[in-house]
């Protein structure tokens, strides 16, 4: 860990982090209010048989209960895109982007090992993910308070939800950083990370909407975040363990590959 690099990374990302966190908080606030205001009407529409039942289970979330609406706020594409600013964008560009721009030369001319450099960026990136997930949850809690429905969830389950959320987006961050440490240019690192996230998201959503595709869900990391189950007290510790294992594997890859790579002069 290098303190100067850590502080500067946070400074560089400060404005972006504030914007993304605010947007996530607003988004998180939105769904509990929708649930409180229109939840019963949506349920009536669904029970009328106009729409298939699966539409009410999009990614394990719904708008007929507070846990369901909070779960939906986590796995909705809007939340995924906003959190991906750091879990994908920052992580994939952290090393490959600096390498492409040529600034990695200057940073690594300082007394900092490549492993130290990687681990510092890893810590900074996890900090960003932790803040963004906390902002999303803070928005959800604020929305629930505003709508007067906060009593429908057990507050003691929120830390596990936060941890599980951080581990999910943290696993994408670890994959992005591993890709970043493996390529000399940003496009392959970014493309690989986006590809992994999109395919996994597709697997999970498809499995939630189409029973025949449920077999694909265990291959998606999104499958290992079940916000509704956690909020109703049915969370499994196996889910965070799987995500933690992915983080450890991706980090181990990067810590082996990055120090061994030849860093030729930037073109």
């Amino acid at each position, binding site marked *: 860990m290098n303190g100067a690099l850590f502080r*500067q990374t946070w400074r560089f990302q400060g404005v972006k982090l504030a914007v993304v966190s605010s947007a996530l908080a607003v988004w998180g606030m939105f769904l509990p209010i929708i649930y409180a205001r229109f939840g019963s009407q949506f349920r009536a529409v669904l029970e009328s048989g106009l729409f298939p039942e699966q539409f009410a289970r999009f990614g394990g979330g719904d708008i007929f209960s507070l846990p369901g609406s909070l779960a939906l706020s986590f796995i909705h594409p809007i939340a995924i895109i906003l959190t991906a600013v750091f879990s994908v964008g920052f992580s994939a560009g952290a090393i490959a982007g600096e390498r492409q721009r*040529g600034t990695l030369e200057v940073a690594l*001319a*300082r007394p900092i090992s490549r492993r*130290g450099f990687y681990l510092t960026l890893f810590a900074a990136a996890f900090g960003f993910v932790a803040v963004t997930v906390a902002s999303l949850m803070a928005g959800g809690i604020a929305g629930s308070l505003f709508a007067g429905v906060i009593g429908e969830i057990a507050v003691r389950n929120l830390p596990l939800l936060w941890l599980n959320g951080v581990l999910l987006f943290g696993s994408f961050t670890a994959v992005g950083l591993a890709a970043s440490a493996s390529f000399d240019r940003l496009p392959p690192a970014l493309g690989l990370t986006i590809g992994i996230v999109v395919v996994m998201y597709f697997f999970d959503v498809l499995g939630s909407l189409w029973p025949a595709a449920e077999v694909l869900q265990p291959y998606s990391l999104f499958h290992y975040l079940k916000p509704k189950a956690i909020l109703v007290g049915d969370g499994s510790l196996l889910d965070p363990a799987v995500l933690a294992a992915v983080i450890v594997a991706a980090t181990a890859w990067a810590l082996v590959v990055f120090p061994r790579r030849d860093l030729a*002069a930037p073109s």
Partner: protein
Amino acid sequence: MYAITTAGLTKHYGRGPLPVPLPFLAVSAPRVRALDSLDIAVRAGEIFGFLGPNGAGKSTTIRLLLGYLHPTAGAGSILGLDIVRDSVAIRRRIGYLPGGIALYDSLTGEQLLSYLADLSGRPPVRRADLCERLELSATTLRRLVRDYSRGMRQKIGIVQALQHDPELAILDEPTEGLDPLMQRAFYQILDTLKAEGRTIFFSSHVLSEVERVCDRVAIIRRGRLVAMEDIAGLLARHKRNVNMRLSGPPPRLDGVAGVSGIETSDGRLSCRVEGDIRPFLAAIVGAPIADLTIEPAHLEEAFLEFYEDAAS
């Protein structure tokens, strides 16, 4: 005491042809010899020039010394530390200016220098002096790096490499983009550093500046060391061009030590003189010389001569 030594330092890229030819795998990465068994020794306190054309292996050598690349074979040490095992400890004690330096454009010059000093873990004790000499005013340093000209960026690059007063500075093409006045200011900085016992290792294409500032040079070509010696020795061995206008018969120069390429026509004589000039001067005593020009040896010619010799 040596600041830098390398012994058989070698860097090859690519895997080369497969040991057993496989018909279904027709293409294999060609093996490129970027550096081949380089042996150099840079003395502590000297200014050492590292010369060679593009692709000769200069940057590869620097990148091996700094741990960006891993050697295929051989070893090296900087300030007594192993370049592979002790890379972080080495970088604590050196300053590095990369060729064509890229900087963090979203920072001001001042923020950038402070950030890089923080990363170095050493106070920027020379920054104020360097900025003054290179005419980087406080107003300039408050501007964003993205607004800097190429010359300004190079000045910032020089300051970041030297601001923490390193024992050894490794500078890749340091005067690239500097105007003549700033080049002179830079040479004066080098003189100061040398007087204070610091070691400078720098690569350059600009032979006149190497001649001006360096104590010794190494010349590298196609990854191999062609020569390494004192500037003075290099120039002394180089042939001088001599032209004389005569008012009578030409002096007899055949067989005079160091004299070659004698040509006479229309009352003029030209030749080349290598090494000790005294035998030549003794041979022309009493000759009817109306005018005499002896062009001093320049590193550029010595450099080119090395290349011609190596090529042949």
